[in-house]
């Protein structure tokens, strides 16, 4: 049983990314949306929390915030809204960390 974990808050303002990334089990996936995308920036301190996680990030939310894809931590998938739907379909459950 796999779970898709959604994080939409900045890791520098809330502990959502910390909680989500540490509770995730093997086979689970993490999707960063809205202000959550700041956690995907390689040079930022928060990116260390992503280690060992399967991570996707919303491209339109990156672009809005002026983050180019070359700034992301290694191994992160950049997706669009269709990719979001695919992730929801693919996993058994969705957990939104609000």
């Amino acid at each position: 049983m796999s779970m898709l974990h959604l994080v939409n808050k900045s890791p520098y303002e809330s502990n959502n990314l910390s909680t989500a990334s540490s509770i995730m089990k093997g086979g689970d996936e993490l999707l960063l949306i809205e202000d959550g995308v700041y956690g995907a920036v390689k040079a930022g301190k928060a990116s260390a929390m992503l280690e060992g996680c399967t991570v996707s990030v919303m491209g339109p939310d990156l672009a809005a915030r002026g983050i180019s894809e070359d700034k992301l931590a290694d191994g992160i998938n950049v997706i669009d809204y269709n990719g979001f739907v695919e992730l929801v379909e693919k996993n058994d459950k969705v957990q939104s960390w609000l």
Partner: protein
Amino acid sequence: MAEETKKFMYINRKAPYGTIYAWEALEVVLIGAAFEQDVSVAFMDDGVYQLAKGQDTSGIGMKNFSPTYAALGDFEITKIYVEKESLEERGLTLDDLQHLVWEDEDEDWAEKDSIRLVSRAELGDVLAGQDVLFNF
């Protein structure tokens, strides 16, 4: 009788699109500029993200208000403080931010940098010297 000029400081601590704070702050700053006060603006914590260059909101259906920061100099808002520790924690440098300038009419409209990179301690000193603080 004209009232005394006060030192107004607007403190921005939120990222630009996840909440409405950043945009609202910008509106209030511009309204405040019309009252001819001594205005400063500070960006710290997630607020530093507001000044990131290259913002393109076409994919999220929201207005990109980031070009407005470049107009602050025309409203005589020339003191923009950016906190160093907040940039570092987020893996950002001044190069990742817009280059904001103002024109000094006392020096033949010479273009000068508006952004002042300060440490948290220095920003604390700046805050201590203000008359009125607005938080967003």
